[in-house]
């Protein structure tokens, strides 16, 4: 169930070019949030809330971490919020990644840009459950890379930059041959990346976290629908997603 909660900003840091990491205090959400879910954040007087993934969650310290890129008026305003400021959020929103493998196995995480944050919370959770985690993270260039060490702490991690200014050069899909064999993959990033990836990994069991412009964020307005593969249905990204089985929806 979605709650409307107030979260106090207890830290805010610029961790990469135009990228902000914020740690938010909230007992209720930090207790129930699962990887892949997001916060629907009200910013100033903006008409629409902004969906931002839960990048980390600390049940003991009762904190939620978000990482967002300044991408327009709203995130620009959010970036100016300071410690002690209070955010009005709807949370936790969405279904999250389903972690259903019986026997702990090897999982590949593939993230692109602002799709990287939710994979960190997922990776940590998988590692805790005994899975082997391999990460491939794509960024624009060196300056936009973040959380490399954090992911390395979870397992093998390959960084890819479009211009090769750091790590491998190219797209995440260019380095898939470099990763060890894995049982299933979880990915979040731009639609073009998800398309290329799911085509390249067709047959493999995969889960994709999708993005779309949202209105309500709770499933009431039909703004964020995506057609299902069978052709005669649709899913709401905010409510039925944002995570879908790669076979389920047609990108």
């Amino acid at each position, binding site marked *: *169930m*979605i709650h*409307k909660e107030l979260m106090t900003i207890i830290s805010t840091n610029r961790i990469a070019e135009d990228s902000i990491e914020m740690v938010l205090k909230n007992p209720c959400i930090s207790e129930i949030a699962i990887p892949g879910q997001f916060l629907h954040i*009200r910013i100033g*007087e*903006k*008409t*629409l*809330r902004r969906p931002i993934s839960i990048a980390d969650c600390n049940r003991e310290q009762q904190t939620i971490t978000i990482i967002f890129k300044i991408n327009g008026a*709203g995130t620009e305003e959010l970036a100016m919020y300071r410690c002690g400021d209070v955010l009005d959020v*709807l949370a936790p929103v969405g279904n999250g990644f389903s972690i259903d493998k019986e026997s702990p196995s090897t999982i590949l995480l593939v993230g692109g840009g602002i799709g990287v944050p939710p994979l960190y919370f997922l990776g940590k959770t998988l590692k805790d459950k005994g899975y082997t985690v391999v990460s491939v993270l794509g960024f624009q260039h060196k300056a936009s890379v973040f959380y490399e060490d954090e992911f390395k702490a979870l397992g093998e991690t390959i960084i890819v930059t479009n211009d090769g200014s750091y790590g491998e050069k190219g797209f995440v899909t260019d380095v898939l041959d470099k990763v060890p064999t894995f049982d299933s993959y979880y990915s979040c990033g731009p639609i073009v990346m998800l398309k290329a990836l799911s085509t390249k990994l067709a047959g493999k069991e995969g889960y994709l976290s999708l993005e*779309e*412009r*949202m*209105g*309500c*964020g*709770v*499933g*009431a*307005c*039909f*703004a*964020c*629908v*995506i*057609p299902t593969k069978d052709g005669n249905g*649709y899913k709401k990204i905010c*409510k039925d997603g944002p995570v879908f089985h790669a076979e389920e929806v047609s990108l």
Partner: protein
Amino acid sequence: MTQLRVELPGLSLKNPIMPASGCFGFGREYSEFYDLSKLGAVIMKAATGSERFGNPTPRVAETASGMLNAIGLQNPGVQKIIETEVPFLAQYNTNIIANIAGSSLEEYEYVARSFNDTSFVHALELNISCPNVKEGGIQFGTNPKMAARVTEIVKKASKLPIYVKLSPNVTNIIDMAKAVEKAGADGLSMINTITGMQIHLTERKPIIANKTGGLSGAAIKPVAIRMIYEVSQQVKIPIIGMGGVQSAEDVLEFLLAGASAVAVGTANFQNPFICSDIIDALPSTLEKYDFQSVQEAIGKGILV
């Protein structure tokens, strides 16, 4: 104690507040936030003859104090709505208003008649802001004759009171209102969204896949107030007002302009509790401005 009750054709409202069509789905999602029995009524998402998948995405964009939407009447179709959605809402002690849409007179008639099969729906809101495919796609809602025609047909087909929802995208809103009143409308609902567009600078194309979308939110409130103020003096049937309502003060402004009840749309996205919050604030707001009841405030802002 101030009195919130309002009596309208087919609708005995415990308070004048209801979520606007398309901004509240069929109530399921918001029922997790508060008890829908608190609402004066619920206006359901548009119902069409058969299931519709609507427009491609993106379907929404944000504008200054407002938003654009081009959902495209996505809905499971009138039969499915009657089977699965209406019974859900019927559990709550509130009035159910079905918003009906179509691409032809026949479709409107079919949808209207279909709602005769359920005893849970109290009134129909006739959404005439739809293109008439048989007439080259011009909207029923922008032509008085076509608006009157669809109103007549729906009125004949249905045993429920009909609230015709007017489009603000017209030169003369009074002509439209008078035309549908004459055609048998029991009430009016206004305003629907104003057609707008936003262009993405880097992509160099409209943000909304449908190109244009309907502008809603606080930005359009002055247009809604103006149209309700003008129309309420020219017709005898009651008006359900809407357009940018965000607070109990806004509700009072609509009542003063001549609305008898008020629907809240876009504001639900900002605050899922908005309808509930407004209902809580309404008594003290009425008192603050020296009104004993909602009924007393209706039309009181009209200068004669």
